[in-house]
Every structure is written in C-alpha cells, then in structure tokens.
C-alpha cells in the first residue's frame, strides 16, 4: 500500500510536468479530501442502513441458513475459515450476487475483521484475506442492473443483451484471479522460506 501511495504521487508530479498540467494536479491535491468527504457522505448512510438490516438477518438466523448453502465451497476455497468468517463471506457474496453493492461493503469489512482475528501477523495480509479481497474486486453479480439501466437511458433496444457475455467475462476474471492468488501464494511461500 505504501508503494502505491508513493508511486502515485511521484507519477502525478512527473506526468503533471510532462503534460504541463501541474495547476490541475495541485487543485486535485487540495480538493481531493473534499471529494472523499462527498463520497463518504453518499455511502455512509447506505452502509449504516444495510448494516442495520443485516443485523436483523443475523439475529433471525437467515445468515446462518445462507451460510449453509455456501459453506461447502467456501471451506474448500479458504484455509480453515472460522464459522463467523464463513457466515460473513456468504452474506457478502449473496449481497454481491444480488447487486446490492452498498450492502456488500459492510459485510465484506465484517468478513475481513473475522479473518483478522485468526491472522498471525496483524500488519500483513493473510491468504484468506487476499483471496476474499480478490473475490470482491471481480464483480460477482447475476444481473448487471446499473449498466442495464444506463444502456436503457441511452436508447438501447435490448439492455439485457449483455447478460451472457457479462456472466462469461466476470466468471473468467474471477477464476483467473483465484488462480493467480493460488500461484502467487506458493511463490510467496518459497521466497520467504
């Protein structure tokens, strides 16, 4: 993370000089925090709301029944996940599948906190965390609602024509990143022994 931050700043200065846009870069540096607060305000309410709703789901045992559906797959995918972690991951995956992005974020953070409990080094990402994060960077959703709506607004005659192609490409992206995590974790293990 620190390298991303460092390289990001260096790149923006270098390219700002090359393209003579340093004025824009400094405006962005000053205004960035304001943009972040605006984004925060727009997602904060949704995170609170869905976390409240999901708390009800958890207390009424919906969560554990959904977790039972996903548990067999998740137990194979993750290394010794705790019961709470399986529940949190299942809820995050189902929220993602249903296209409820705002509900998926707090559930995902919840899952990360559960993985953190069994993490040996609290400053460094565990295999389970990396795998889970990668599940979320690939868009796992059944109906691409946002895009379909946008297509409709711009006069598409068949907004859902993208259904199967989207399914194919998101599934292959997901499989590719899972495979990459498996391979990288082996390489990383070898390098640090």
């Amino acid at each position: 993370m620190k390298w991303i931050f460092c390289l990001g700043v260096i790149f923006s200065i270098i390219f700002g000089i090359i393209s003579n846009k340093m004025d824009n870069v400094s405006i962005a540096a000053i205004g960035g925090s304001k943009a972040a607060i605006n984004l925060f305000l727009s997602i904060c309410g949704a995170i609170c709301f869905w976390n409240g709703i999901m708390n009800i789901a958890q207390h009424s045992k919906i969560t554990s029944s959904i977790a039972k559906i996903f548990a067999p797959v998740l137990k194979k995918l993750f290394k010794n996940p705790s019961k709470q972690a399986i529940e949190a991951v299942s809820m995050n995956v189902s929220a993602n599948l249903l296209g409820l992005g705002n509900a998926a974020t707090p559930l995902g953070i919840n899952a990360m906190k559960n993985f953190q409990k069994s993490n040996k080094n609290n400053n460094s990402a565990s295999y389970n965390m990396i795998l889970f994060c990668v599940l979320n960077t690939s868009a796992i959703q059944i109906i691409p609602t946002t895009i379909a709506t946008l297509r409709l607004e711009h006069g598409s005659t068949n907004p859902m024509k993208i259904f199967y192609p989207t399914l194919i490409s998101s599934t292959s992206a997901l499989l590719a990143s899972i495979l990459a995590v498996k391979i990288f974790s082996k390489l990383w293990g070898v390098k640090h022994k």
Partner: protein
Amino acid sequence: MTDFFIPIVIAIIFLAGITKKIDIFHIFIEGAKDGLKISISILPVLIGIITLINMLAASGFLEYMCKILEPLFSIFNLPQELIPLALFRPISGSGSLSFLEQIFKNNSPDSKIGLIASVLIGSSETTFYTIAIYFGAVGISKTKYTLPAALIGDFVGMIMSVVSVNLICG
C-alpha cells in the same frame, strides 16, 4: 422486476425477524450504529486514495498510459476507443461510468463498441478502491500480492469481454 427487488429483500428480512420474535427496531439501530463505526474507519482511507486518484487523473498520467499500452491492447482486439475505459475501470468508478456514457453517446449502446464497453464495466470492479477500503478497515498495510492477482483478473475480464461479445452478439 428490479424495482421490486430491494423492498422485497428488506421485507423478507423484517418478517423473518418478527416471526423469530426479536425486537427488529432495536437490532436495526444497533447494526446501523456499527455501520457508522465501519464508515468512520474507512474515511481516512477514502481521503488518501481519492486524493491520490484525483491527482493522477489530473496529471494526464492515464492519457500517456493509453498511448504506451495501445500496442498491447490492440493484440487482444480491444477497440481503440475503449482503451481509456479499460485503464480507468480499476482506478475510478465514477470516472469509468462517465467514459461509458460518452461511448454510448458517440456510438449506440447496441453497437459492438457499446456492447463491449457495457460488458467490460459490468464484469469488473473498482479494484484499487476495494482493496484500499477492505485492508484499510482492518488496518493492514502489507497487502502482498493482492493487487497483482486482482489486476490479472481485470485483464482477463477485459480480454473475455471482447471475446464473449464477438462470440454471442456476433
């Protein structure tokens, strides 16, 4: 159909809570309170990452990357108009959506370029943002191989969106 979806999910959860005889209002408030804590915990990460992304976008970095990476993308038959979209996608959600709208305006959403763009956006996520939020929320700074693995996924998704549109939509 999709209009019914969210209210029905909420209603099902409420009804399940009532049949299990739990105080759904109290439990909701408790959960929402935790949600506020979660939101606060990701705020510093947001400020850092959004400022950085805005600076990079303002510096013209992506325009140069488009030029540099053009030969690579053209190997995979990605139309030239879509290169900025593919590069922006993992970095900025709102940025790539405005690119998509631009593409819909210049070409119809049902044209091949419009279709590939839709699939590209629909099958990927704002990778940098997701990683920053998830690891930031638990205070982990060493993300090891998370980013490369995620970017490999994004790249495969990009190739496959071209392939699948050609295959299915002709």
